[in-house]
């Protein structure tokens, strides 16, 4: 099997496409600011990762509106939650526990888990909470639906700060190779 190595090719599990379209259907016209994050967001930016869920970042108010809009999928209630992440941060070669705090709920569409984080913040060990997750999204059309996605440079900064070098390397590969394409253009 020949592998495509292009930094511009996007591959996500096909079963995610109808789930995302159903999500769009529920959120359309409701003026909710939301974006795809997590591994799916990175895959939509061309990074070779296989997502195991759909992660959404939004505001507290956005989380509540999404919860209401997705009521037919029996979502959990929105609740502020601080969760220790399975992977530690690596700060100065020392592993530190990592926490995410957000107005959170989960639900499923067609068997695919959707995790919604409102006002997401991160905290390393018992240090203070970081800034809220803010960014200007990039846009990807899921078939015909314009969808906001967390940009790679935001994830890159986050992973650098957390010391997750493997993820930094993967994202850097995409960014570097795309820059080569752009530089080629102006020669």
């Amino acid at each position, binding site marked *: *099997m*020949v592998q*495509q*190595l*292009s*930094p*511009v*090719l*996007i*591959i*996500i*599990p*096909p*079963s*995610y*496409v*109808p789930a995302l379209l159903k999500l769009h259907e529920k959120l359309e016209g409701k003026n909710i600011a939301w974006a795809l994050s997590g591994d799916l967001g990175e895959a*939509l930016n*061309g990074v070779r990762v296989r997502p195991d869920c759909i992660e959404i970042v939004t505001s507290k108010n956005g989380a509540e509106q999404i919860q209401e809009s997705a009521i037919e999928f029996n979502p959990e209630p929105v609740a502020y939650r601080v969760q220790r992440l399975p992977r530690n941060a690596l700060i100065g070669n020392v592993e530190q526990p990592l926490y995410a705090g957000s107005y959170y709920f989960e639900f499923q569409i067609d068997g695919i888990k959707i995790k919604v984080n409102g006002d997401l913040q991160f905290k390393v060990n018992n240090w203070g909470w970081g800034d809220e997750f803010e960014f200007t999204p*990039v*846009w*990807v*059309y*899921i*078939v*015909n639906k*314009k969808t906001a996605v967390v940009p790679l440079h935001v994830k890159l900064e986050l992973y650098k700060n957390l010391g997750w070098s493997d993820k930094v390397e993967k994202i850097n590969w995409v960014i570097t*190779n*795309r820059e*080569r*394409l*752009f530089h*080629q*253009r102006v*020669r």
Partner: protein
Amino acid sequence: MSQIINHPSVDVVVLGMGVVSGTVAVELSKAGYKVVGLERGPHWEFATDFFYTKFDEWGIGFMRKFDISLAITSSTLRNNSSQFALPIRRNTIGYSGQIISEGWGVGGMAQHYGGVMGRYGPWVYQVYSDTASKYGLGFLNAAVPHQDIIDWPMTYDDYTPYYEQWEKMWGVCGTNEGPLLSGFENYSYPLPPAPTTPVGTAFKNATEALGYSPFPGPHALATQSFVNPYGVGVQECIYEGWCAGPCNYVCEVGAKANSDFRTIPAALGTGNFELRINSYIFRLDTDSSGNIIAARYYDEQGNVNVQPGTVFFNGLWGFNIVKLMMNSGVGNNYDPVSSTGSLGRGIAMGVPPPVRTATGILDNIGGNSYTCGSGYGGAYAIRDLCDDNFDHTGLNFIGGAYPEAGFYPGGGPNNFAFFADQPTPAMIGSTFKASLKNAFLPTKTLVALAPSGVSPPVTDWYIDLDPHYVDQYGDPLPRLTIDWTMNEVNCANYLAPKCADILTKMGASNVQVSPEITTPVSHNPAWQAHMRGGARIGSDSATSVFNKWQQCWTSQNLFAAGEICKPMGDNTTAGTHPIGPMSYVAAEGIQNYLKNPGPLV
């Protein structure tokens, strides 16, 4: 020493890995069937193979280094059956910018097409019956002497859901195709059109003022990052040009849709699809009932490989579909003397030469012909002058043309020649440069509207096997006997002045219409990329090779799709768009056959 290699049988053997084959591969492998795809060329790695050679205009544009070498295989061509057919030995007819090339490698010819999209209208699917009922058979026979037109076996309405499926997968950009084409009431193309160029805007305003219904010309050069229903996607076009013109340039960012980055990655992802490159298919083995039992191909070492299967999908480029079937003794060959038989019958040109042209100069309209935008995006078009969208009573032709203006040609000397108002005497040097001076300056933009008419199938044009020339393995080349008909000439004569009216309304200066043509004075030096017919689908096995499910009448486990399977067409698209729905019909037909083997009609 070469040897015979026997492979285990699979459910579906896909021959060629171009536009239509990708659809069949992904649909069948997704459904759980074991599929093998055979491709005679390489699997280009578009980010690396195309990356460093992107701007080799001479090598790619003229020398066609991403196309198959004509030393491997070619075709021969003549304009009537009394001539001696000569082989095509160059992929480009230099001075006129005409392109003759076959696909080579995964993705096929669509690795470097223009990405022009657009549906065929309802008229195309029922030209024979509609024309006969509305104007009478006498009109049709007078407009097209020796006509050999058959209706498609399905109507436009039948194809509409397949069109939608295709457009969402391929990532067609546009809005809709105006009020003259139904099917867009609650639907539009998935991606927005490219930004309109100044010329496109002028065309839109002028045609609106003249009472026409302009719309953004649909194309398949992704204007946005995009993921299709198979979970495969690409980034948006970043180059803003350098890819169109006579369809020379491949796209290393994947924005220009083809199966290599729309369907094949998804097929590979199922685990049910095996892609075999460097596999030159030369024969289909049949059993006593006429069904196919195996495909034979040469690998890189010259070994003969035998791949058995339950179903075979012939997705080879153009008339190679016919060549393979004829060399394998599959189907009933057409006899031009008695006008019987179906294989090789009904070929026509997809994009006939523009025999009469209207041109004008737009002064200081803005834009820049040298850098421009994304390939064939940015244009506006009208359907008012195509198909039977105007009354043909008293006219001497069927069909019409599809004026479109404002697309971004992109750069390169070959492109300039393509868009120059007349063939230039040389492709390089001071003469060439001088001829372009008044056409491609920011302050002076040449606009040419060339109303190419519809090329209808006639009994005189056909494909057979050449008795003199062979490919590198000793198999006869396909021989094309084809020319253009007075239908195209009469159409251009009628519509060129109307195009001049549009140019005048656009504010063009020096509007000129080339002289009226009275006889088909010029012949085709080459076949073209969008030839159709030859292995057409239809409702009658006497005049068609495949039925409405794209299933062969004589070999029930053989299916095919491609431009060469079209019974009829028009110029609302270069030709690629309508084969998408055909590929989905074939995929559905194959699944039906695998569940219940036998004739599907």
